[in-house]
């Protein structure tokens, strides 16, 4: 009788722990890590910008990981503009990256959408992967 009671207690504890673990995983899932994610689209800045003028309004690209290569046309701490078509906001790990105008770089980041005021596609959580 005693062993059976022990068995029930142990089993209940294991089930409760598992429920708590999976429940927590469900309630507080891990944040996306864009740098680790696989690239969904590789295309030039101009094509990405044009995609948002098309009938589909770039819906296919929103929230997707994109990789693009272009010339730096403008930059400041934490952000760059490529080919006057994309504004990429860099992850903090890129803050020391040596940037200069007209240099060609490749970035990987999450496509957020099209900004009509600036006429730029905004990309966030971006990382410079190639100089």
């Amino acid at each position: 009788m005693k062993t059976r009671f022990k068995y029930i207690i142990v089993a209940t504890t294991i089930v409760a722990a598992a429920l708590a673990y999976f429940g927590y995983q469900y309630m507080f899932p891990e944040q996306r890590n864009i740098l680790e994610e696989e690239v969904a689209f590789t295309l030039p800045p101009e094509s990405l910008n044009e995609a948002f003028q098309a009938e589909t309004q770039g819906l296919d690209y929103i929230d997707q990981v994109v990789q693009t290569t272009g010339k730096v046309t403008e930059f400041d701490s934490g952000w760059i503009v490529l080919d006057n078509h994309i504004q990429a906001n860099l992850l903090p790990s890129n803050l020391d990256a040596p940037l200069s105008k007209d240099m060609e770089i490749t970035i990987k980041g999450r496509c957020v959408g099209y900004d009509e005021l600036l006429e730029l596609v905004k990309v966030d959580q971006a990382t410079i992967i190639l100089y």
Partner: protein
Amino acid sequence: MKIQNTFFVLALLLTQSLVTAQDKYVDKNGQVTFEASEKLFEEVKATNSSVTAIFDSGTLEIASLALVKGFTFKNSLMEEHFNENYIESETYPKATFKGNMKDLDVSSLSDEVIKVPVAGTLELHGKSKEVNTELDVKRIGDIIEMTGNFVVAPGDFDIEIPKIVANKIAKQVQVALHFKFQKR
């Protein structure tokens, strides 16, 4: 004579466009935070650090655009629900504000903060609402800095909060903004 006229018109157009270009101030990475937390419940708060804002010091007009997908929450499940169930960011990808700053004398701005009334329209989730607020404005070097707060209600924008979570989300949403404008 005709050629001269054409040159005159061209010169006029050029100076005009130069004047308007000089009047424009832009912030490509403005910050907007909203919070709808209720005491004792999990924080409901999101920040977008890539909000665009354009300020025209000639007409005193201000325009701002935030891509809804750019708002990040601490809890990514909350972010997912916000995008899919509440704000429906696939259908309504942006939030915009267009307004006018009454009684602002840009030339007299200094590092001392002044309060400037702003009236405008906030548009999100396909609905518009008039917003009247005050912004704290100052100038540091070439940068015009503006900060402010205002309150909106989800109901104003036809955003339905399901009953099951209604007591976890505040009826009044606090919105805070911080722009650093640089001359274009």
